[in-house]
């Protein structure tokens, strides 16, 4: 089936997703690039997450029906890999590296300091959707351990206290501190 589609992929009428969401064209383009081969599943999931930020059930169904891969298999593959997430991230996102070098340099302290201060568990988002905290297994910047990725930028040689302060300031700046501030003593 997939093979057949690939041969006449070009002649298919250009269509947008019924929802009118333009972002679906990114998924379409990726699938087309791989000629709708089932093997492209991981690449398509990557492109989807990059575009949408996370993989919703609708997106998985969309990929499943277009690649002709059973939904169970799409779900199985997506949940196997750590990089794929199924919930939207908070407005501000903090990833703490817990690789060996960072561990030796005290990354566990940073994790507990942040999760206490902002009352959020690792791998989840605050109730108000403002701040997500997660950990990573080595970001490969071990020379400047411990490392934290805050809103996409890598910070090296991080101290727990300074990190709490930085994030406090970011949230304060946006006038967002009220909701998280109550949680702390």
């Amino acid at each position, binding site marked *: 089936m997939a093979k057949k589609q690939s041969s006449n992929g070009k002649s298919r009428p250009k269509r947008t997703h019924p929802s009118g969401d333009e972002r679906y064209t990114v998924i379409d383009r990726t699938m087309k690039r791989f000629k709708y081969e089932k093997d492209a*599943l*991981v690449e398509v999931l*990557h492109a989807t997450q990059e575009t949408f930020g996370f993989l919703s059930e609708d997106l998985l169904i969309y990929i499943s029906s277009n690649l002709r891969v059973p939904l169970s298999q799409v779900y199985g593959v997506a949940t196997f890999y750590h990089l794929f997430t199924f919930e939207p991230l908070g407005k501000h996102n903090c990833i703490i590296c817990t690789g060996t070098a960072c561990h030796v340099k005290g990354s566990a302290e940073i994790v507990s300091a942040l999760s206490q201060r902002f009352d959020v568990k690792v791998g989840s988002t605050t109730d108000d959707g403002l701040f997500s905290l997660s950990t990573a*297994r080595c970001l490969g910047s*071990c*020379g400047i*351990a411990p490392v934290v990725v805050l809103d996409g930028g890598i910070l*090296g040689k991080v101290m727990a206290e300074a990190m709490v302060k930085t994030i406090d300031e970011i949230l304060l700046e946006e006038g967002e501190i009220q909701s998280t501030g109550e949680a702390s003593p």
Partner: protein
Amino acid sequence: MNEKLTALREKEIARQAEVECRIFCCTSTACLSSGSSETLNVLESGVKAQNYQHHEAEVVQIGCMGLCSKGPLVRVETKGKPEDIYGSIDGELALQILAKHLPRSNQSKGESAKEQDDKPAQLREKIAAARKKRGLIRNAINPDLPFYAKQTKIVLSESGLLNPESLPDYLAHDGYTALDKVLNEMTPEQVCNEILASGLRGRGGAGFPTGQKWHFARNEVSDIKYVIVNGDEGDPGAYMDRTIMEYNPHRVLEGMMIAAYAIGASAGFAYIRGEYPIAVDRMRRAIRDARRQGILGKSVMGTEMSFNADVRIGAGAFVCGEETALIQSIEGKRGMPRMRPPYPSQSGLWSKPTVINNVETLASIPPIIQRGADWFASIGTEKSKGTKVFALTGQLTNAGLIEVPMGISLREIVYDIGGDVPGDAEFKAAQTGGPSGGCIPASHLDTPVDYENLNELGSIMGSGGLVITDSTTSMPEFARFFMDFCVDESCGKCVPCRVGTVQIRALLDKLLEGRGEAGDLERLEEICRVVSTTSLCGLGQSAPNPVLSTLRFFREEYEALLPS
């Protein structure tokens, strides 16, 4: 080498030879995180603002220079003078570098330029002001430092010398001459024999002779064969492969193409960790540039060989570093290992003969072809030839990326290159091989580092992570840290690994929470033994190593957790 490439190469060599002063700024991940994008920006706009001619000064982006803990690093090459290396260069110090190493700005030319933009003028003033400042000398790094002097660079030989995003620059550093040599002067069999004779062993961890692997794949009869670059470097505390791809992606590509020629492959993939965006970017760019210049494609450098390469991005599964799991992942499935045999060299990607080599292994290939197997075999120990790149991190003064000859002692690595443990704390253990490796105590610091010796100590060479811990680290706690990792990363296919690692962690938890009982250590050892002997793949088989090796060398710390 065909005329087009030779012309490109000679033009670049001539161009570089003309430049009076070349300033190299590290833009690998570690330095970028220390702020090298600002340094680079100041250097580039400063050179531009001073209106130098092309032959007077240029700023070059380079990959890793090794001493990551002192980033951002800048190297200055002035005609007829010894090189200068500076560490921890921020925007302010970058101005001082410009002031010190470059001639006074070409003011007259600047003023005659049609626009009198404010910014360049301000920048010129700042640089002029920086001439009076002192302090840069404190950031100078002596190139004869033991950190550099004790290293032997083969894989990292062009470290700090070339722009990873420029194909002409690679050609100017003898790039693709090894590929040219094998295409025109050697048969595939000769290539395999040469690599076998060099004694090169897989740098991904297991240490299988690379030449032998190639022979197996070459002997298979198939319409299509594949080469895969294994860049799924999942070991926490290791970043050799990522740095190699970031600093010299063309070298990896060249090694991959030599492997392809040797086994008769027509397509290849570079499988790179999703956490390494810069490496992905630079490999993609290298492939694109090589294709444009006819190095990749239907007729490789004008010969009959046809080869195409593409990048595949991993999605964060440690087990995908295992070759059969990696293949599953490229095929778009869950990355779970399968039984071997058949080995990938017989039945790999899409059931075709496939050679999977680690990034560092492939980066070692071009120098071996250029300088000969005998030269490579003369470095290292009897069974482990050549050099190994280590990511030397943890509690050390000089953390970073190093390349040392096999057989060097751990003591030299820790004390001479690493510059000892900072502060009052003392060296306690060197952890090698990541979650599959073990901890080596101070009493074994004089062990020569090679595959066999590390195995004997209950650790492994692994991909090259070398994390130094000091007396503040509790070993049972450290073992639990690794077991946490293995529990998380077990793919769940086989029972010993899926269940065993959870049980080991539960026992460690019990001990660390002060609920230990007599007989727990024996139970721990027994479970470890079962997991290591009965698991399906390397991840499971080596998962108990951190526990077993710390039990062996730091048993008293475990015993202290038991009720007396």
